[in-house]
């Protein structure tokens, strides 16, 4: 039986379809968005570019989690663990000393593969547990991960952390500033290049995720989320698909980890605690479970808000200083997100994606004229 709330039964003839829009509307909007994103680094300052890169890195992770939680219905609080594996995996593989000294592109792929492999190791557990149960059990991975990060000092640098080798292709750094390079008079340093690296990765992530969700695997996931027994009776190998969902989301988390490591240029275990897992969950919920676009929007909101609040309030007296025990930017942001999650679940569990969809349909004139009972 479907778990999402079913609206009142509607006579099909009462469903009013939208005014037809041109088939070019969507591609046009996407093209405009891409141009804007490509041009922004010419106008934004370093701080804003950082916020942008961090948001896009987080978005890659959020996309993976929304597939796991939203599409496949498997709650996971272990996302931070797999992000850590990807981040530290890249850092170790790419490091010229105390590392494997691989070319960064290969190391990045390696970090993602290791994260996916870690997901594979845990997947037998993930496959056997019901969605909620998995969420509760996955907490364990975060704590174990923290333990490993603090103790595997040669690889992770322990509690003090370690630096991250910049990403470069044949010597041209994409997360660092050398060699120097300018576009239209604007120097393209580390922040500008990181933006494009993050943007490219995000676009790849969106493409792959959409491919999965709208085709056969995505349909199988959705069926598993709503009714595992029926899914199995329809020929879906539920355990295999649940395991796969977990591995795929771990890979995306790993990708987010690699990007975050490059963006911060330094890694510490504190970055990858339970708080990060909860942040990812917040991004996915706010954006709308199962929506790729929603995950991106959610990631931007959750990542940027505390940082923007902090810089906005820096001069004024509106918010307290960090560590003062008053209402500082971080505290206020957290309360806002928590409240947003609670309100959204009560009012519109579909998150911003669903709200956006409803708004869009209203604009196009679509809707339902009346609700009738079964004829």
């Amino acid at each position, binding site marked *: 039986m479907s778990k999402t709330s079913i609206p009142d039964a509607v006579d099909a003839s009462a469903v009013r379809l939208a005014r037809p829009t041109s088939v070019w509307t969507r591609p046009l909007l996407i093209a405009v968005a891409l141009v804007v994103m490509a041009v922004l680094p010419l106008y934004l300052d370093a701080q804003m570019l950082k916020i942008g890169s961090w948001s896009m890195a987080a978005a890659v992770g959020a996309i993976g989690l929304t597939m796991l939680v939203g599409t496949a219905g498997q709650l996971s609080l272990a996302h931070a663990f797999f992000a850590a594996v990807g981040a530290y995996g890249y850092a170790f593989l790419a490091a010229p000393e105390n590392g494997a000294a691989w070319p960064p592109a290969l190391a990045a792929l390696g970090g993602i593969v290791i994260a996916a492999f870690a997901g594979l190791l845990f997947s037998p557990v993930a496959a056997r547990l019901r969605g909620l149960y998995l969420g509760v059990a996955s907490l364990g991975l975060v704590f174990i991960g923290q333990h490993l990060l603090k103790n595997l000092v040669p690889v992770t640098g322990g509690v003090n952390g370690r630096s991250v080798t910049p990403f470069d292709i044949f010597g041209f750094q994409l997360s660092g500033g050398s060699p120097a390079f300018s576009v239209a008079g604007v120097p393209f340093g580390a922040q500008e290049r990181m933006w494009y690296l993050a943007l490219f990765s995000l676009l790849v992530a969106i493409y792959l995720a959409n491919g999965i969700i709208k085709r*056969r695997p995505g349909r199988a996931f*959705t069926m598993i989320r*709503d009714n595992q027994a029926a*899914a199995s009776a*329809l020929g879906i190998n539920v355990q295999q698909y649940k395991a796969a969902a977990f591995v795929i989301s771990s890979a995306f988390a790993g990708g987010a980890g690699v990007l975050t490591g490059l963006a911060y240029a330094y890694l510490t275990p504190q970055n990858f605690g339970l708080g990060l897992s909860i942040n990812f969950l917040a991004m996915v919920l706010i954006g709308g479970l199962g929506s790729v676009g929603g995950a991106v929007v959610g990631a931007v909101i959750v990542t940027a808000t505390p940082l923007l609040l902090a810089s906005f309030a820096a001069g004024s007296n509106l918010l307290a200083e960090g560590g003062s025990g008053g209402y500082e930017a971080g505290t206020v942001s957290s309360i806002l997100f928590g409240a947003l999650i609670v309100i959204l679940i009560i009012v519109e569990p579909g998150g911003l994606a669903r709200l956006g969809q409803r708004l869009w349909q209203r604009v196009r004139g679509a809707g339902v004229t009346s609700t009738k009972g079964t*004829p």
Partner: protein
Amino acid sequence: MSVPIEAKEISLRFGGVKVLDRVSFTVEPGSIHALIGPNGAGKSSTFNVICGLYRPNEGLVLVDGQNVGERHPYQVAELGLGRAFQNIALVAHAPVVDNIMVGRHRLMRSGFLGSALGLPGSRKEEARHRERVIEIAGFVGLGDLLDAPAGSLSYGGRKKIELARALASEPKVLLLDEPVAGMPVHEKQEIAAIVRQVRDDLGTTVLIVEHDMPLIMSLADRITVLDFGRVIADGLPDEIQQDPTVIAAYLGEEENAIDTEVMLQVGIEKEHRP
């Protein structure tokens, strides 16, 4: 050639409750076989055992000659078993066409890599199967509603999606669990006609659970009657209609005899559980 379904002495217990007690019956190929009985008689449980969701405590089920016992439900589905559920198991927020497409799962090959990358093979397969789904939707009368969210359809409409999805898997044996419950008469006739067509044109074997007596009597080639988890009768519709044990099971021995044939034709059954 093996029969589509053969149930042999199936017993099923949940805790202390005996849900099925040595249930045996055979479904002949290309026939419409009905499973009837009062509420709680064990009909849905029988379905669950046949498709592999429950493991029987004793006895076995052969689907197309293969023992279902140790198999997972998805493996039983691969033997050619399709199922429409009594409690509608649809994805409400997804469009009708996507819901029916789930039925094509076992006939498609696209995996994660092909789908993620959008490889040509994956896209072509998707398009091909989508066309077939549109045909099947038209066949059951859902042609105009393909893009509507499944949850927005009437109860009868959703039942049709269930049926279409089961048909989409192109099964050799079709399990229909109360496919016309809650529908108005004209829609019931539509569905009955579709079921007959599926048997006649496709040679599909159908095992159907239903409470609508007149419908069953006109549709079924053979009927098995369950009561309290036991088979109390098995035979042709005419035989079943006259069978005193069946009549007693539906109406209860204590009741005074009203014209039972009329009762059966009108399709009234009485709940007689203590």
